[in-house]
């Protein structure tokens, strides 16, 4: 029941924003290269990504560190980082089914509002990028959670990351709709690779050099985030005193 309620809660922005944009499309046929079908597909795909590829593991790290429950994991043969990833991955796998069924239903009943990729290469690339998105999102959440080694409470950082994610990932509106200043900021951050870039791939709006450049930067961000996590984990364990138990 809880999972169903979370599922419904997470869908809300992907209902309201297409409706807002559709009301604007009554005056315009296209905005920044997005027509009506593209914008609806965009929101359906970002909803899919948010539901299936967005990790929420920061809280698990925070609670285990603050409450001293990490001790149990430190003596187990499976590392806590692997445990957290498997835990989150299985949860996301379960989320995959309802959201896919929902997408299929929408495609059957409203085919004019959902544009599928024409090339099988796009499908394969999108699936691979989704796996990278899940890993990147997981690493970002871990960075937030691991700061609990020093600060205990990580709500502030968590909210700041969420703020940047909300604005610069493109989950609430395609970044092409943003003023140039905000687009430039988004290009310097990893967040756009968590929603906007995969949605562009699905919509086949990005090709050739641009696609290669985007994928390269995505991998670079993935490695940077992994290095930060590795650094924080090693330093944090030295700081950790197991209190709270």
């Amino acid at each position, binding site marked *: 029941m809880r999972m169903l309620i*979370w599922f419904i*809660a997470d869908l809300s922005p992907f209902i309201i924003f297409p409706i807002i944009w559709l009301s604007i499309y009554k005056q315009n046929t296209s905005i920044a290269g997005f027509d009506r079908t593209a914008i609806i597909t965009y929101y359906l795909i970002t909803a899919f990504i948010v539901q299936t590829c967005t990790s929420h593991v920061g809280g698990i790290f925070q609670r285990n560190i603050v409450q001293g429950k990490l001790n149990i994991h430190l003596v187990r043969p499976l590392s806590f980082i692997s445990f957290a990833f498997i835990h989150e991955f299985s949860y996301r796998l379960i989320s995959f089914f309802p959201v896919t069924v929902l997408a299929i239903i929408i495609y059957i009943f409203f085919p004019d509002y959902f544009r599928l990729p024409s090339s099988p290469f796009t499908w394969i690339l999108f699936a691979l990028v989704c796996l990278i998105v899940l890993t990147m999102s997981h690493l970002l959440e871990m960075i937030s959670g691991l700061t609990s080694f020093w600060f205990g409470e990580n709500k502030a950082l968590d909210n700041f990351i969420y703020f940047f994610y909300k604005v610069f990932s493109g989950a609430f509106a395609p970044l092409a709709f943003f003023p140039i200043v905000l687009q430039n900021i988004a290009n310097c951050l990893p967040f756009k690779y968590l929603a906007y870039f995969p949605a562009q791939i699905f919509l086949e709006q990005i090709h050739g050099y641009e696609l290669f450049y985007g994928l390269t930067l995505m991998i670079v961000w993935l490695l940077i985030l992994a290095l930060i996590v590795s650094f924080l984990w090693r330093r944090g364990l030295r700081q950790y005193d197991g209190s709270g138990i």
Partner: protein
Amino acid sequence: MKTIKKYWKIYRVLLSNSFSYIANYRNDAWLMLVMNTVSLLTTFVIVQVIFSQTNSIGGWTAGEVYLLLMVWTILDELVSVFFNYLFFLPEIINDGSVDFYITKPVSALFLISLKYFLWRAVLRILIDVVLFFVVISYFHLEFYWLNYLIFFILLPFSILVLYSIFLIANTLAFWFQRIDNINDTIRNYFSFARYPLEIFSTKTRWFFYSFFPLAFTSYIPVAILLKRLPIYWAAIMTVFSLTIFSLAILFWRYALKRYSSASS
């Protein structure tokens, strides 16, 4: 009169207890203030992005949408300030703590709804109110005094509608137990009232005026203020809010009979 005095005396004690609690967690209060400001800022950025592509949504200008957004934010904060403990109802039903409230010689619903006054949010509301007037001034919004008066009279009724919705939803915990996240879901969907209802189809709008009555939160008072709805809607809203409040109380009483006291 005697009963009112008795309840007021209890409420003063509850206010005092809430203040003692918050005094122990001052840092958390500042942190939450920053977080809420950031959240409001996010919404402002999103609205700004929308208006960078158009001059109006659903016929509403940027200033009018910002006004609607601020009213919704203030209402949401007010509900959190006064009825914060209500959101813990699923939790206290689960652990059997409802025993503690139903055995007291006062209304259990009164205690559960008003037990915790969220003092830390008072400053947030003050900031929101200032922003409300900043929006009016910045966008040069002008209102007729009668509409202004009706708008302020309607706000408590908006809070009553929101309270009733949250009460009905949380009362479902007597049947479904672990549904504490229902509050986030309701808040997410009721936040649609931050945008003009004119963007929705006629059928959806009908839904928002009846089964999912988010029109009765921020939309109707602001629409009356902006003369987008005739004044008689104030009477409809008053009747509706009192009706849904009565239904919520009846539902609570019915559900309380199901309570099996898990812990004792």
